[in-house]
């Protein structure tokens, strides 16, 4: 049953007015942080400021966020097995189109990771594209070979987070702070992390779409 409490609308109205007033009256920001960002861009190893924030300055957020993605997958896998897909066989057009499209998806994803260092792009956009490729493949009736649905699939799923943690711990081992990249190899390290993250994000999104753990896991 849908419910419409009579008090709700006035309450939300008040909330809306308060929030709007807060947004409109917001004081002018301190410009210190953006300036610091620009000053440190050169040693961050990325030329695109968003990538620099995501992977270097606030890389720890991104590490935990890879954790969130993996945790959601763990949750989904704990709930159910993969449902049996009852689609009819794809018709010829879809079949041919998907065969043409998937390589393009992968190519563009690779480009996005590469371009992410200097221009808008990066692991999440590329991963989303890979995920879409996975969804398309699935809808065309393709499935993961049982041989790969065990450990190899799991390795692929944790790769992004694992690479992040490994690079972070590596920094500890050479005596600097967790996740601090040595400036000389910062861009290389970030590319490695991004590539690993792209694969994991793509695989995770596709696996989330499938909606359950692979059969025969228990």
């Amino acid at each position: 049953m849908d419910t419409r409490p009579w008090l709700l609308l006035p309450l939300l109205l008040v909330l809306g007015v308060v929030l709007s007033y807060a947004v409109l009256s917001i004081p002018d920001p301190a410009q210190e942080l953006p300036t610091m960002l620009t000053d440190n861009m050169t040693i961050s190893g990325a030329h695109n400021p968003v990538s620099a924030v995501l992977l270097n300055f606030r890389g720890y957020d991104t590490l935990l966020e890879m954790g969130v993605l993996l945790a959601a997958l763990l949750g989904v896998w704990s709930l159910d097995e993969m449902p049996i897909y009852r689609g009819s066989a794809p018709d010829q057009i879809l079949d041919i189109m998907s065969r043409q499209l998937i390589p393009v998806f992968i190519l563009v994803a690779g480009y996005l990771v590469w371009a992410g260092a200097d221009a808008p792009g990066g692991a999440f956009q590329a991963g989303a594209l890979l995920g879409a490729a996975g969804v398309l493949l699935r809808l065309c009736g393709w499935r993961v070979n049982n041989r790969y649905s065990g450990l190899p699939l799991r390795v692929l799923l944790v790769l992004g987070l694992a690479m992040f943690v490994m690079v972070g711990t590596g920094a500890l081992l050479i005596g600097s702070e967790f996740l601090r990249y040595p400036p000389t190899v910062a861009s290389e390290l970030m590319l490695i992390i991004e590539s690993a993250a792209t694969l994991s994000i793509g695989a995770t999104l596709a696996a989330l779409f499938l909606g359950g753990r692979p059969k025969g896991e228990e």
Partner: protein
Amino acid sequence: MELILGQIPWIVMPIIFPLIGSMACFLFPAKAKSLGLLTSLVVLACVTRLGWQLKALGSLRYPMGGWGAPLGIDLYADGLSLLMLLMAALVGLGISIYSSSYFSRDKARHFWPLWLFLCGALNALFLSADIFNLYVTLELLGLTAVALVALAGGADALIAAMRYLLVSLLGSLFYLLGVALIYHSVGSLDIAILAQRVEPSPAMWTAVGLISTGLLLKTALFPMHFWLPPAHASAPAPVSALMSALVVKASFYILLRMWLEFFQTQGAAFANFLGLLGAAAVLWGGIQALRQTQLKLLIAYSTVSQLGYLFLAFPLGTSIAWKGALYMLFSHAMAKAAMFMAAGNIQFFAGHDRIAELGSITQRLPLTLTAFALAGISLMGLPPSGGFIGKWLLLQASIESGQWWWGIILLLGGFLAAGYVFKVIAHVFTHDEPTSRTVTLPATMEWSALGLALIAVLLGLFTYWPLAMLEMGSPFGTGHSG
């Protein structure tokens, strides 16, 4: 050796190890149990070692990625975060030991990675000094907690998990909108920097309101507690234990931290309002607990009641009041985890948790009943127990600041707790024939419950260390009196 150990940044270890452990459990499900137990032990060791460091330094700031705030994210540890970490590590070890026998094989392989993720999220949350990073840890915590509740599998658990997920996301979004307003008006996300720069403005007040609402919703403060009893009662026993003992405390911790650092200036009326809600929670939760016929629901409502005590410290605002509230929080975590584990044992043994039919079972489980009773002593606030010390400090603070009426709530809450604890304990003294069921309960499940209950009681005898811990880095400042 000491030189090497001293150089290790122990502050990041309680975050890294659970993440690594979780991934290892996911990759090698067959070894999950031993990996999980090992991780819990390692986390406790790291936290102890961090405490050692803090004893010398007072407080510790650690720049993740080497940038330092405001450009990067800082970790920050002082006595307050150490207390929370220690609580999570101790309860965590108890839960790991308990769970090693509780779950069937197929459930265990899902439980361990999720639980270790949750453990890492908790530690990351207690150590974070960045309000957006706190949002990410909150979400990681929320999602894993939801998945763990749903692990029980029945329709009740699924529905409770769904409701919990929606509430949790709603709370997070309120929090995030508050963070957006704060960032855009101050220009930083680091709590320490915010504490220096925050100036009262409409945007700031709104942000404080949004963040508090979101966090109170997640902490299940009355009247926003409606989601808690079903979620905590329908989850598997170890999950109920970690939800009630740890997860609700996480959002409380964030609120407390922000309150101490920069919310405090936003007005005393708000503090009194929180105190009133807390008082209502103590009474309402207690009365509801008395009315329950199912053991786990009774314990869950007791959590609603006990969470209320924590908010009585806000209107008092003195250092003693905060210490009292945190003492309550710490001993409640031990006692409540023990109690849910004991309830889990009873359910495991009897196949149900109807209070009226406990008579025939309780006599067969003396250790479990002892754990339940000891935990009950702490919840009631009888000496000697951690709950007693916490209440004593709060009472002292309320008399010192001339706000004696909060003290009455403490006493009333104690009577209600006595009522619902004895409602269960009374069944030991019935003349029901002991049941002839021959379920063997693994010893680990009884002893882990008893161990945590004992800690709750011992907290009443050894008060020096916990109170000294709360002085480290003086998280409550020096001069906030009444």
